[in-house]
């Protein structure tokens, strides 16, 4: 775990010797602390002095992912692979970027390439399985929006799968305690983090209601928050539940709202036993 002291020490070191490669651990420490603009500045400046330094380009790619700039991340990892063919982190990263962009075949190619190197950790194996599933699901999405995918009609995890139109969209229905009722919340590495997200969001409904009542604004209808890589929209559901929708940052906010309405409608029907 990097601390503010580490950052200060590395900053001093870089100030003493601006030509050193210490910009990489410094940029990484800043990235981990969420100081992305500063991390970007430090890394870009370092790469101006060391344009062929693989670790610098790898770091710049990861900073770009954190900033939601997937195209730049892809370009940087592409550079890493040109400088160091078969680079494990770059292959994983490009797999992630392709997955986020819905390019599942390419994602599978990069992740499989990383796996072939024999260093298959749990996260990589899970990501590979998820990408393969996503590829199969994308091919099987029905054209009739009133139907669920074949074989999944009774599986609540797939409740929103035909409402959501792109791979990076995900939706989740939580009960009043933040427990998952339906849907899934899939993180970039393929893990379903629905329970974790639900736990953090439990109490949102109550806090939102108290805030709007205190200000006499009426019952709240939606909460939207934008992160570095995603837009998350929430709406109240039956029995003090909460509907959570996440899309990529590139999805227009108007479309996010429409998707939220469609998911809310789907959740209402499901809760009412009409699906």
């Amino acid at each position: 775990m990097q601390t503010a002291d580490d950052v200060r020490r590395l900053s001093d070191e870089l100030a003493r010797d601006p030509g050193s490669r210490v910009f990489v651990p410094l940029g990484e420490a800043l990235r981990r602390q969420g100081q992305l603009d500063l991390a970007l500045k430090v890394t870009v400046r370092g790469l101006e002095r060391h344009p062929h330094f693989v670790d610098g380009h790898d770091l710049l790619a990861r900073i770009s992912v954190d900033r939601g700039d997937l195209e730049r991340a892809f370009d940087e990892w592409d550079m890493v692979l040109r400088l160091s063919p078969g680079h494990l982190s770059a292959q994983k990263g490009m797999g992630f970027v392709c997955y986020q962009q819905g390019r599942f075949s390419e994602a599978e190619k990069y992740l499989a390439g990383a796996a072939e190197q024999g260093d298959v950790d749990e996260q990589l194996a899970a990501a590979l399985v998820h990408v393969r599933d996503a590829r199969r699901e994308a091919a099987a999405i029905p054209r009739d929006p009133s139907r669920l995918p074949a074989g999944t009609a009774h599986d609540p995890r797939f409740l929103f799968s035909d409402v959501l139109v792109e791979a990076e969209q995900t939706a989740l229905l939580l009960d009043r305690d933040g427990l998952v009722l339906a849907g899934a919340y899939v993180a970039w590495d393929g893990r379903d983090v629905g329970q974790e997200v639900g736990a953090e969001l439990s109490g949102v409904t109550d806090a939102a209601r108290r805030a709007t009542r205190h200000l006499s604004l009426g019952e709240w209808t939606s909460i939207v928050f934008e992160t570095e890589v995603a837009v998350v929209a929430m709406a109240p559901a039956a029995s003090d539940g909460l509907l959570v929708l996440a899309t990529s940052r590139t999805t227009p906010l108007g479309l996010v709202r429409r998707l939220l309405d469609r998911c809310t409608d789907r959740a209402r029907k499901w809760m009412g036993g009409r699906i």
Partner: protein
Amino acid sequence: MSARPFASILDSLTRQRWVTAALVVSERDGIVVESNLQIGQSGDKVAALAASLYRKARLSAKAAGMGAVAFMQLEAPGGRICAVGGGDLVLVVVAEPAVNVGLVRVELLRAVSELLAIGGSEELL
């Protein structure tokens, strides 16, 4: 140090049409650091609730690996609550339904760096 260090940020926000309140709040404990409120409004409770909402949004984004929260908006028939975070501080705006959210969003995002600077973010380099 000025007695009202965030005055220019808050003034520029409350100058927006249909904005009824602007507050700088500590995310950790929900305490008002500075505010511009209309007569009759009580900032303490809304500050605590808005900070709590923002904190939940930030923690859930972290749990999902989505990075930092840039902007949050709560919508209700009678108005909106918008917020951005900078360090330990949250800048909150309360507005009527007719407000131009796009403009408020731009103003809030623009204010983040100022919030960080005044709020004591570390200048590292």
